[in-house]
């Protein structure tokens, strides 16, 4: 498979990412100060939230989780927000997404394809892709479990109510 053979070429992957990032930045009209979640980003997160958490949230749960992820990103330093903007951009431009992640448009990607993408980045020889996996993992997992309504399922009672209101 084309994707697999590409993933073996770690160095090529790194170069493609750097080049893709440069092209991507050239295409953007201006550098935003803060990460802004656009519709494409929402569609991608809607695919990543169930894939990373291993859960099947309802549409309202999903929308709320996506907002929390965006909120968490907006709490990071602007420099980091810019890195995440670049990552989202690369994963939403069709050529770079296919090349780097090996997935079709996010709404068409199967759970199997998304899991393969995550696993390949998780153990990729290109450090940049490994760190991108960690970033997506921590943002999605953190965003999901920040919400009190997710706590009953994991046996976490939450903080003492008298002091946390």
């Amino acid at each position, binding site marked *: 498979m084309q994707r697999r053979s590409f993933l073996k070429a770690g160095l090529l992957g790194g170069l493609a990412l750097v080049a893709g990032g440069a092209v991507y930045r050239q295409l953007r009209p201006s550098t935003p*100060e803060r990460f802004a979640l656009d519709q494409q980003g929402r569609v991608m997160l809607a695919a990543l939230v169930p*894939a*990373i*958490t*291993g*859960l099947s949230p309802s549409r309202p749960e999903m929308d709320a989780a996506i907002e*929390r992820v965006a*909120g*968490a990103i907006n*709490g*990071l*330093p*602007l*420099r*980091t927000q810019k890195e995440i903007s670049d990552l989202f951009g690369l994963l939403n431009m069709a050529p770079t997404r296919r090349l780097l992640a090996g997935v079709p448009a996010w709404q068409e990607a199967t759970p199997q394809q998304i*899991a393969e993408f*995550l696993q390949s980045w*998780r*153990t990729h020889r290109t*450090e940049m892709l*490994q*760190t991108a996996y*960690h*970033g997506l*993992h*921590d943002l999605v*997992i*953190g965003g*999901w*479990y*920040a*919400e009190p309504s*997710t*706590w009953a*399922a*994991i*046996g*976490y009672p939450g*903080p*003492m109510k*008298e*002091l*946390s*209101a």
Partner: protein
Amino acid sequence: MTSPIPDPIQAGIAAGWQVIDASALTQDRSFDADVVVVGTGAGGGVTAEILARAGLKVLMVEEGALKSSKDFKMREADAYPSLYQESAARKTVDKAINILQGRTVGGTTVVNWTSSFRTPADTLGWWQAKYGLKDYSVESMAPWFQKMEERLNISDWQAPPNPNNDLLRQGADKLGIKTGLIRRNVNGCWNLGYCGMGCPTNAKQSMLVTTIPAALEKGAVLLTRARAESFTLAGGKAASLECVALTADGMQPTGRRLTLKARHFVVSGGAINSPALLMRSGAPDPHQLLGQRTFLHPVVISMGTYQQPVEAFSGAPQTVYSDHFLHTQPVDGPMGYKLEVAPLHPVLGASTLSAFGASHANLMKRFAHVQGMLALLRDGFHPDAAGGRVTLRSDGSPQLDYPLTPYFWEGARRALLTMAEIQFAAGADAVSPVHELVTQPYKNWDEARQAIAALPMQKLLTRVVSAHVMGGCAMSGDAASGVVAPDGVYRGISNVSVHDGSLFPTSIGANPQLSIYGVTARLASGLAERLGAKA
């Protein structure tokens, strides 16, 4: 609803403390003081109180905001962005190590887990032998530790350890590994388990509720949301400190500038920000030491699951430790490690688990049954554990490069083996080292022993974290091995001192807060004398 707990910060402000929020300034400002203290964590807080009590006019500068118990709601989603550097996601340059560091009035003492250890004797002995710190013996430091233990109510913890801690004790006991109980800086602790999100009951004796209020009572001024940018140096002295005001969310400068003048300046910004401030100022560094040898006590993690509930989110976070593996080899032999446990709350706990998809969800179903064990590796004593290096990005902000060496990985593997063995001895039915290639938890010690021996030890596969940043402005009796003299004064700038964990010429080999309190109490008392105490 407001908290039923009285809030000493709100009361103090109402009573007339001089607190200025720089984010609200509409024009540039200048301030004068006897001493400017940069940073309000363990070193800055202690220094500010001692100098203010000596009758000196003290100005404290802090880039974080002033938060207090009314804000501490024990919710991770609020606590991390508001109280930590970079939302608790600060990382080394290669993103291989996640660093927990406070950014708020009171610094990391507001969010630490209250573990209090005197500087170990072998660490002090090493400093005396290798760094010319001849006055830093166990005996000569003892009164300073005692003074700060009394000041911060550091004492034996009376309640039994929670199950998370007790499993470390039980497993170690079975294997003949000695453990001890951790002393804590608390007063009237409710045993809730949320120290890492700011103490909601003001029981934790952080700088926020002890030394900083005492300094403010004595007329000190606190400037918040102000970032120290650089000293103006001339003739071997600092003439002023230039600061920039930050927006209320701390994200970026507002454009307002502050110029602070003082007879003396104390740098207490922590081991990443302090060297960075001195570098931006062009501080003399003839031996290329500034920002070098930054230590982290890099931590590896092992998660054990048990039949019975562990509820690692509940109760005092750290009450049991073992120093056994700090003493099985010489201090400069193979890397030693201290064993402790970590409280597990949903956001940090779930994101630390190295799995995704169904395997993550399966681990989370047993979240309340997970015990999280930590090994803190002692860096700075062996040539192959020379620590990291703080450098400046093009915008002047600091970054830490910390290479993880084969020497470290050898210790990390031993530590993961030790923790798995202890967890199984304590009755775990499964153990997972936090590592990306561990896809199924190990079911018994034999399986774990073989698997961990074969796991590739490399960054971004093995999870490495740190909550203890030290070094970078090493104190030494010899100018060739430290930018700071044993009296805390920066060599070559006669009116600038460094009072924080960046002074340490090696790591401590224990949670560093009491080391910072004791050393800076001593340095600040000396400084007060030299500046001519007025009271």
